């Protein structure tokens, strides 16, 4: 009896202690969240084996990581890359709350290993390994570690967005294709996407989607997957359902939103916030994603990391202005193009920086940006904005070029050296602009066609004005402008094989009244 009482008392005491430690634990976790650098909150969705390993191995984890690290280094030196993903995975899982390990290994895979391969597909695979390591796992275990957001943004900004890697076009195209499958145009239609359920349970419970889900189930589609209902993979019956049913857009958008969230870890609401602040961004391009991750990291950052993330934002904005819009050629090839719509955001960022740092280097940077922005707006035939930019350049940074007026500024916009060009060179440059314009037209971008032709016209006229004598024009071989147009057009038309592009050019020929090649005497062609 005595023994029973003793045991009962011990069990009771144990229960009291366990309950007490549970209560203390809550407070400790809160303190940990507040006091730890980077607000490292406890992870709730850690897989059981990771949680077990981190607790059970204790300090020995470090030794195991060292051994794995040595092996990984040796494997990399010997060119046996196939083990690196697994070894990196183990190392990071053994120290899941150590952001530097995630940062190092994702960097190693995305930057160091990728460039050891010749084939662009192989490189892209390794860039993705590095990206996924951070995005899918590192940030899950360390949601408050700003350097991981920065490292992820860095992959988007420089590995994919810049041209440091020979395969950067492949990365850009691959990414644009992946994103392009999840929304139409530059960005998701936020209104529609935010209304659509972002979980499978939510979708199944949505009364508007239920009848269609039921009908799809009758065709054999019980597991709703985007690929199963998209046109290329779907059966005729499914395709018919998805084209006729009024709930089909909701279903499609919900599945796309879910993929954005689950695979790419992109929250449409947060995307909208970033777009509201800096957009309209083209989310098929890498710069927009670098901006997104930089913005997410800023919420946890302070000190130098906060400064780095600020820099990432401004650099990405400038880059997105230059090449942040995806233009797809008629054969589907991606042509990164300027995103003029974010001009005011970039300008605002520069002006804020100027307010903070009113020194010469910032002014030089801003003047260069304004000149670039002017050229781009002229190139895209956005003369209204170009006039505004010209006005600002004239006020802030007056020069002989600005004093000579808008037209002269346009004509000399690509460089002061044009004054030293001879007639042959002027002809070549003007012709180049015209061919460029027709090429853009053939690709379906009328704005850029008009812009390029306007640039050619301004350039040509400026030179004619500068050297205003018929004898000079004849001596240097500078023909009439319409002859340049004629020659450039037919030179391009002869080269273009794509039926859509040819059709567009032939229509343009009719609209602009460019004569056919045949009636022009060969002697005239030779002459020009």
């Amino acid at each position: 009896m005595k023994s029973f009482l003793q045991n009962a008392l011990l069990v009771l005491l144990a229960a009291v202690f366990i309950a007490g430690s549970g209560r203390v634990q809550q407070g400790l976790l809160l303190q940990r969240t507040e006091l730890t650098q980077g607000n490292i909150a406890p992870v709730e969705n850690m897989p059981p084996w990771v949680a077990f390993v981190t607790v059970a191995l204790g300090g020995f984890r470090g030794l195991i990581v060292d051994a794995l690290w040595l092996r990984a280094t040796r494997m990399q030196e010997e060119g046996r890359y196939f083990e690196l993903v697994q070894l990196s995975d183990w190392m990071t899982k053994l120290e899941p709350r150590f952001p530097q390990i995630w940062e190092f290994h994702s960097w190693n895979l995305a930057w160091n290993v990728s460039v050891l391969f010749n084939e662009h597909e192989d490189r892209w695979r390794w860039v993705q390994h590095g990206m996924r390591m951070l995005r899918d796992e590192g940030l899950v275990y360390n949601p408050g570690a700003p350097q991981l957001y920065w490292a992820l943004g860095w992959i988007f900004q420089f590995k994919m967005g810049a041209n440091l890697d020979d395969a950067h076009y492949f990365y850009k195209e691959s990414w644009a294709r992946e994103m392009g499958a999840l929304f139409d145009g530059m960005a998701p239609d936020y209104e529609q996407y935010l209304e659509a359920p972002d979980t499978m349970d939510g979708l199944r419970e949505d009364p508007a989607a239920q009848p269609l889900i039921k009908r799809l189930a009758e065709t054999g589609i019980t597991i709703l997957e985007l690929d199963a209902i998209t046109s290329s993979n779907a059966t005729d019956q499914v395709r018919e359902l998805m084209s006729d049913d009024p709930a089909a857009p909701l279903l499609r958008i919900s599945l796309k939103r879910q993929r954005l969230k689950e695979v790419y870890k992109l929250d449409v609401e947060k995307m909208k916030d970033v777009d509201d602040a800096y957009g309209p961004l083209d989310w098929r391009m890498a710069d927009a994603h670098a901006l997104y991750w930089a913005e997410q990291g800023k919420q946890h950052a302070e000190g130098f990391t906060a400064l780095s993330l600020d820099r990432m934002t401004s650099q990405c904005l400038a880059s997105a202005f230059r090449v942040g819009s995806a233009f797809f050629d008629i054969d589907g090839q991606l042509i990164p193009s300027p995103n003029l719509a974010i001009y005011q955001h970039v300008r605002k960022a520069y002006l804020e920086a100027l307010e903070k740092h009113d020194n010469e280097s910032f002014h030089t940077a801003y003047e260069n940006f304004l000149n670039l922005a002017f050229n781009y707006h002229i190139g895209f035939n956005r003369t209204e904005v170009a006039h505004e930019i010209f006005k600002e350049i004239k006020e802030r940074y007056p020069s002989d070029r600005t004093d000579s007026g808008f037209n002269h500024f346009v004509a000399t916009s690509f460089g002061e050296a044009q004054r030293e060009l001879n007639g042959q060179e002027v002809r070549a440059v003007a012709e180049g602009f015209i061919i460029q314009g027709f090429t853009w037209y053939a690709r379906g971008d009328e704005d850029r066609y008009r812009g390029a032709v306007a640039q050619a016209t301004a350039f040509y006229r400026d030179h004619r004005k500068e050297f205003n004598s018929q004898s000079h024009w004849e001596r240097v071989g500078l023909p009439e402008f319409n002859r340049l147009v004629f020659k450039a057009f037919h030179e391009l038309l002869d080269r273009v094989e794509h039926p859509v592009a040819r059709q567009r050019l032939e229509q343009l020929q009719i609209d602009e009244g460019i004569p056919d090649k045949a009636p022009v005497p060969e002697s005239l062609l030779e002459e020009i």
Partner: protein
Amino acid sequence: MNKILAIASISLRTTVRSKIVLSLIVILMMVIIGLPLSIKSDATISGEVQILVIYTLGIVIAILSIATLWAGCAAISGEIAERQIHMVVSKPVTRFQILLGKWVSLVALNAALLCVSGLAVYGLLRWNTRPSQLNSEEIQQLDEEILVARRQIRPQIPDVDLEAGKTADEWMKAPDFPREISRADAVEEARKTILRSAFSVPPGTTITWKFDLPSGVRKDQPFHIRYKFASGRMEITTIRGTWTIGGPDVPGRATIEGNDTAEGFHTMRVQDDVFSADGTLEVSYKNTNDQRPVTIFFPPQDGISVFVYSGGFEINLVRTLLILLLHLSFLSAIGVVAGSLFSLPTAAFTALYLVVLLKFIPYIEIMAARKSFVSGPGQQGSAFLDIFLILFYRGMQFLVSPLKSPNPLDSLGIGELVPWSWVASVFVVKVVVYGGAIALIGRLLFYRRELGLPS
């Protein structure tokens, strides 16, 4: 012999009855089937196969090694602790026969378990690489590069010893040459410098290597050239070059244009008959990176190798398993002898210590190569301690270095030949020499051990 086999047979039966074998088989099967589901490869089929081979068999060996050590230690110490040994030693068997009998039983058990594991891994491998799951390119890659036994042939290295000696002597004549550097070190450095120069390819120049092919190479099989180079300028990472496979006298001489990244390993497949009549292969590389001229450098040790077909994967797997079995036999010897001398916990820790020591052989070699431990340039240290440590590490190196052996799974996984000579050398070193030495030490000490002590 019969007595040894009788003891081995009794031990085996006891082990089987204790369900240890069954448990081990279940654990091994769980690992073999479960591990591939949880590991990540580089998302290529070749990577998956390599990971499957190396990791599953690696974990199998790790489990068997631990089990072997434990079972070896427990084999005799357990019988001593439970007094069963009294029954055995009272029979007409020597103590050495008891030791050998226990060892044979462990080897037989390991052989059976390895056989089952090897078959399971092979079956899983064939199931995962069944033709319906792969495209033709993947099938070809697996057949020619991974699920095969290829011999790696390195190029002939020019004999530069004489030149290195002369260069070192020239260096040593210079007034500013550091006096503390010995001639041997200077010659070695000169050798490396000359080799580096010999393996460098300045812009527009050509380098030629010659490979001695072993007899019996099947010329109807495609072979692969694996190469790696470094760029003289960090900013130039992609280099154009022209490969010429085969000497000028070879009718099937092939020319291949390359555009490769520096620092990465690249593989070139060659199908043509490009071997010379004397059984050699000549390979040339011309640096044609004209637009951005840069010197490139092929590391002499692993800059270029030729891989030729030498046999099928299955026999390579068998040889690998044999080497692993020999390694387990060596561990069994350590375990059994340790168990015959100490109680189970002490024996287990002693055996574990020895196994860990084997893992540190590379570091022991590094330490043994040091010329001083306590004094450096401009520092005074204890000469006695220095001599003691140098002798200690060199002694350790002498004792354990022969046991250093690469992991055959690393070769098997990348389709490299595991030759019979490797199996033989492991047998001689680990079983005959070291296993024999351990057995003799065990015999000597076990005979002196008093087994009838009251507890």
